[in-house]
């Protein structure tokens, strides 16, 4: 790490440490019911089985939902890119669907389609497919006019235009969409657990919200879910980059 990059890290780290110190001191002086950082840290260190189990459950739903969303979104985007009439009819509806606050209706959906593991995956997928379908559609459609003209000069077939031009062309936007979707997937999985799940970070938080018995764990869950969400974003981005490296000029 260069000195300049080290510098970049120093200030926010010191600031965070300062804030945590203030929290710690204030908590101990006032004897508030809110746990202090050292208590949370202690819980994280000694209670790892609880955190791992619940994070695992949520992560499984998030990953499952993300994968399902990827499959559905890319099929939909390909359909949109291939058949303009389908796109004209349904793409505005896809955009409009984002007006529905999905977080608010997730519990309703869970009531309708059941609250089992697969229905949680399905709802999570619905929560995170939007950035995927929009980014992929955009990337598939917005090819350089001269690139398109080049293919036309040689009388390229529709499938050649699709596979040799549109698909490689959309990898950049797909990666960006993937990043956003992975973030949504983890949040989605937590929110979906609010209705009916017995295991998982969201399930624990909602049970504590109804009847608080273990505030230290609640804060521990907040820390863990932030880290796990970040991990999912980074890992899925890394995998996508690796799989698409052939089409990312900067990677070769």
């Amino acid at each position, binding site marked *: 790490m260069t000195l300049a990059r080290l510098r970049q890290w120093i200030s926010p780290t010191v600031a965070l440490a300062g804030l945590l110190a203030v929290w710690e001191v204030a908590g101990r002086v006032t004897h508030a019911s809110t746990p202090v950082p050292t208590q949370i840290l202690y819980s994280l260190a000694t209670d790892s089985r609880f955190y791992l189990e619940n994070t695992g459950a949520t992560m499984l739903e998030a990953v499952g939902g993300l994968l399902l969303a990827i499959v559905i979104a890319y099929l939909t985007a390909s359909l949109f890119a291939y058949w303009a009439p389908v796109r004209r009819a349904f793409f505005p509806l896809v955009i409009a669907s984002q007006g529905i606050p999905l977080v608010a209706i997730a519990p309703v959906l869970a009531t309708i389609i059941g609250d089992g593991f697969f229905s949680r995956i399905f709802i999570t997928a619905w929560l995170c497919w939007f950035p995927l379908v929009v980014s992929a559609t955009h990337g598939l459609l917005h090819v*350089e006019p*001269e*690139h398109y*003209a*080049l*293919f*036309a*000069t*040689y*009388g*390229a077939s529709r499938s*050649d235009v699709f596979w*040799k*031009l549109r698909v*490689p062309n959309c*990898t950049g936007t797909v990666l960006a969409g993937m990043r956003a979707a992975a973030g949504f997937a983890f949040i989605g999985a937590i929110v979906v657990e609010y209705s009916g799940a017995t295991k998982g970070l969201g399930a624990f938080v909602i049970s504590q919200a109804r009847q608080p018995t273990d505030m230290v764990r609640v804060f521990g869950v907040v820390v863990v879910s932030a880290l796990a969400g970040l991990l999912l974003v980074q890992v899925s981005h890394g995998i996508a980059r690796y799989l698409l490296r*052939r*089409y*990312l*000029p*900067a990677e*070769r």
Partner: protein
Amino acid sequence: MSASRIRLTGVGHSYGTNSGVPTPVLDRIDLEVGQGEVVALVGPSGSGKSTLLDLLEGRFPPRRGEVYCSPGAASGRMARVYQDRALLPWRTVRENVELPLELLRIKDGRRERIDQALERAAVAEFGNFLPGQLSGGLAYRASIARALVTDPEILLLDEPFGSLDEVTAESVMLVLEDVLMECGSTSVFVTHNVEQAVFLSDRVVVLSPRPTKVAGIIDVKRPRPRRREFLGEPSFANCVRDVRQCMRRGQS
């Protein structure tokens, strides 16, 4: 002169506008290009030079008149070099040159054809580079190599030196002269640079501003191949002067 490869008779074209009144671009163009001839189209910006190339390529029919071009684009024996190079950034130079063969389903002797095209355009040692790693001149030569890979009988070049600095433009011009000599394609290129038009062509066709007519045709009688020394000869200067005068007359 041998049989015409390209013949435009009374070609007129206009573009639709939002107001519904079509904007006339080409007024009346008559032009014949013989086998193996190199013709430069020079004219002010917006004089419909690229539209003329589009018509030659058969991308759309003219509103008036007739365009004859043999062989046509569908045959794969016509190639076009684009102003912005239109190299696919995720393909190496070699893979870019291979693209026309893929699109035309030409399987025999791909390797040899690609090697020869790279050689002719003087980019053989850059085959494994990505377009992003090339300078403007090299990128242009790579796009020439791609055009040559199908042994085109007709070569259309759109603003070959548009975005190159003077020194690079000159070296590309000399490469292009060799290429045109060697492959013997019937070539039409549009440019607004008078010197380059005179240097490379057998005839310079001067176009008037919109709506465009042929303002004059200047024959460049100098035999081929032409070398750098031609640039310093009185006959070169005379041709350039004639073209400039013709352009001025066309403007007024």
